[in-house]
């Protein structure tokens, strides 16, 4: 997904003079294609993320479209106030791009677990959060990002995620339907979508339809689409590779409670006790119950 991001960026920048890419000293063997083609529009800011966000703001104030690149906690927590005051309050055209969203760096320990980033970005003013599941959702998001001149957070996983779509996504809104609305539905956010697809396929073989919707864009603009789904009187399971506190599940729940008849929302995400467990992504997904098997357990209970 990292490489697809850079491919999209290189393509976009080839037609523009005002696209900047700043990195906090990360991106080895990822960012080179951009640097090669746009050497004057690239800065390695060093291990100095607060300055990176301030400089991005200054560049954006001068009419540039700026992308910053780092690992999720360094890109968000470390410089949160710069994102809040400088980028968001001034409503600037800066896209904070993070790799390692979720648990792809699960073996590296808690410092590298990107599991609170959605919470702390989506609460900021003017901000839109993009969480693509694969390279096709990334392209889908990127086409919206280039038109969006307000602050953006683009949360990428790592690299080597499987393709989950056979062709270019043609959804008209922000929510992408995989399996049509049913009694039980999964609303999925990010690369964890692969587990939801496996789960739905498992039930399909048994003749049970589980609805599935991918929601890569968390914003005010997406809310009416989610609201429409939630008002159909069905059950919804939210799925994310992120803490349950304040993340995508909270976002959906907040929409639900605003309804006259709130929907039943079951949140599946990284558990608060166990946030510091270490292991590879597959292992950690299983521990937190956010893999296919975890979902099956939740749905079997509902089917009883």
């Amino acid at each position, binding site marked *: 997904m990292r490489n697809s991001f850079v491919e999209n960026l290189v393509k976009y920048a080839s037609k523009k003079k005002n696209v900047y890419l700043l990195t906090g000293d990360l991106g080895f063997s990822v960012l080179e294609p951009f640097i090669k083609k746009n050497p004057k529009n690239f800065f390695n800011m060093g291990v100095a993320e*607060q*300055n990176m966000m*301030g400089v991005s703001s200054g560049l954006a104030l*001068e009419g540039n479209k700026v992308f910053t690149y780092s690992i999720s906690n360094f890109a968000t927590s470390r410089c949160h106030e*710069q994102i809040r*005051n400088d980028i968001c309050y001034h409503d600037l055209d800066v896209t904070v791009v993070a790799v390692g969203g979720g648990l792809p760096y699960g073996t590296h320990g808690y410092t590298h677990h990107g599991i609170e980033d959605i919470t702390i970005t989506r609460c900021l003013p003017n901000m839109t959060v993009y969480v693509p599941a694969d390279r096709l959702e990334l392209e889908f998001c990127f086409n919206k990002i280039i038109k969006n001149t307000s602050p953006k957070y683009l949360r990428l996983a790592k690299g080597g995620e499987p393709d989950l779509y056979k062709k270019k996504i043609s959804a008209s809104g922000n929510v992408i339907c995989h399996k049509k609305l049913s009694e039980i539905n999964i609303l999925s956010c990010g690369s964890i979508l692969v587990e939801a697809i496996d789960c739905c396929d498992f039930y399909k073989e048994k003749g049970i339809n589980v609805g599935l919707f991918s929601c890569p864009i968390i914003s005010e603009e997406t809310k009416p689409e989610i609201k429409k789904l939630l008002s159909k009187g069905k059950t919804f399971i939210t799925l994310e590779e992120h803490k349950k506190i304040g993340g995508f599940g909270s976002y959906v729940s907040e929409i639900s409670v605003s309804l006259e008849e709130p929907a039943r929302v079951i949140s599946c995400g990284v558990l608060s006790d166990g946030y510091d467990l270490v292991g590879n992504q597959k292992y950690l997904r299983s521990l937190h119950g956010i893999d296919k098997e975890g979902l099956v357990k939740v749905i079997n209970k509902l089917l009883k």
Partner: protein
Amino acid sequence: MSELFAKKLLEDVVRMTSEAKTSHVGGCLSCLDIISVLFTEVINIDKKNPNSKNRDRFILSKGHTAAIIYSALANKGFFSRKWLSTFIQDGTKLPGHIDHKVPGVEFSTGSLGHGLSVGLGMALSMRYNNIKSNVYVLVSDGEMNTGSTWEAIMFAAHHKVDNLICIVDKNKIQSFGETKDIINLDPLYEKWETYGWNTYDIDGHNHSEIKKAFIDSKKYSKKPSVIICNTIKGKGIKDFEGRLISHYRPPSEDQLNDILKGI
């Protein structure tokens, strides 16, 4: 010209903070002479064309001394002087920390350690686009505790951003005491110089010295410039001069009247 402007600023900031019964007059008064020279003889800004590409950019990084910039901009005609009496009142256009929604204000600050990075970003873009004007950023000495400011200092020097000019209001006092007792900054001149900046160390209340440093720094190339201005916190209000209390206590009616009489 700058001397006359200084009198207007003095009257305004003492009146604004006194009438609103609010804090931070001390830091307004320490940078009063710097702002007077800057706004009358140095920066090129135009109320009729506030977004002109070729304007100089000014960022107040020590955003708590907003009152003096509001006064400077009102006196330069960016908005009505009547606004000044609404400073920090309910529903005002003039919040206690400087705000970009006010005509002529480039950037909102209030949390220390943000302004130099933003100015650096502007300066990089202006250099890329061959815009020949400068970016001026006023920081406080307490602000020099922040790591983010040092991040910007290192990066600006490495990239030889010579259209960036930083001004340090070295009034020697920060929020809870004297800088020398909290984190001693000295030798500050040597620090900036070692970090690769074209450095000046001047009397921040002497208009001709201030002017000279600005003119010289404008001409300097290949390095960013910093003008360390040695100032007195609360300057002009006798009981406040060099005292921490000037950071908090609003000027009394008597103090305001003394200032008005003096002018």
